[in-house]
């Protein structure tokens, strides 16, 4: 386990950069990780992250489909917000563990 400093907060992360403890997350931390990934965060990004954190807090699985049905963004929009591997990137920025979903 490693420690990393984002926006003045020491965060415990695993070797892939995912948070060990999602309570160490805040908006400024997210912005700092986003910068590391060459991403500028907008309100939409934060809305998606809030949605992901709520779902995880409820113990629900994260799927791309559920994000498409969230009413926040459609699937195409989700890929545009978090380019590349969006579910992985979005959960990383939201201070969550790596998603283990196949869909």
């Amino acid at each position: 386990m490693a420690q990393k400093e984002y926006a003045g907060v020491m965060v415990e992360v695993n070797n892939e950069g995912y948070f060990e403890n999602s309570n160490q997350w805040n908006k400024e931390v997210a912005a700092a990780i986003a910068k590391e990934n060459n991403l500028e965060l907008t309100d939409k990004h934060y809305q998606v992250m809030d949605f992901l954190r709520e779902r995880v807090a409820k113990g629900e699985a994260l799927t791309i489909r559920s994000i498409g049905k969230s009413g926040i963004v459609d699937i195409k929009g989700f890929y545009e917000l978090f380019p590349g591997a969006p579910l992985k990137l979005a959960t990383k920025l939201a201070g969550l563990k790596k998603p283990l979903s196949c869909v």
Partner: protein
Amino acid sequence: MTTTEEYPLKKVCIICAKGSLEDVYAALVMANGAVMEGIETKVFFTFFGLDGITKKQMSNLHTASVGNPAMRMPGGLPFPTLLGAIPGVEAGVSKMMRQEMEKLDIPTVPEFIEMITAGGGEIFACKLAVDMFKLRREDLCDDVKDIITVGQFYELCGGQGTQIIFT
């Protein structure tokens, strides 16, 4: 001493040649999984696999209830082949499969194809199979990018870090 170096997968080209519910889903899950990882993804539907992208059939794919040794009754007992031959049983079994998948947030076939293309994946139909089944472009789902030959598909499969997967 041998050293192993890892080369990340950059592109996958998936071929779906069979039209049963589970065969089409295997291709779609593999394809969507690749898109989700940011891997360039192309899917080629051929022969009976075309049912997966044909408007009329794609929402109504079936699991074979006859000649499917892996099929069991709820509870695990073997599913008698003769029972599977009774009219309506195959439809019922397929419906049950679809319901179970819905519970796991697995999308329907048309929705799955939409998800794959929304993420940048590309769907192709095999020209030979389209001709063979006397289908027209308008019979295929709108997300199909093109009807192409085998040779054209292989041309799309070039480049380092590319794999062709036959499901």
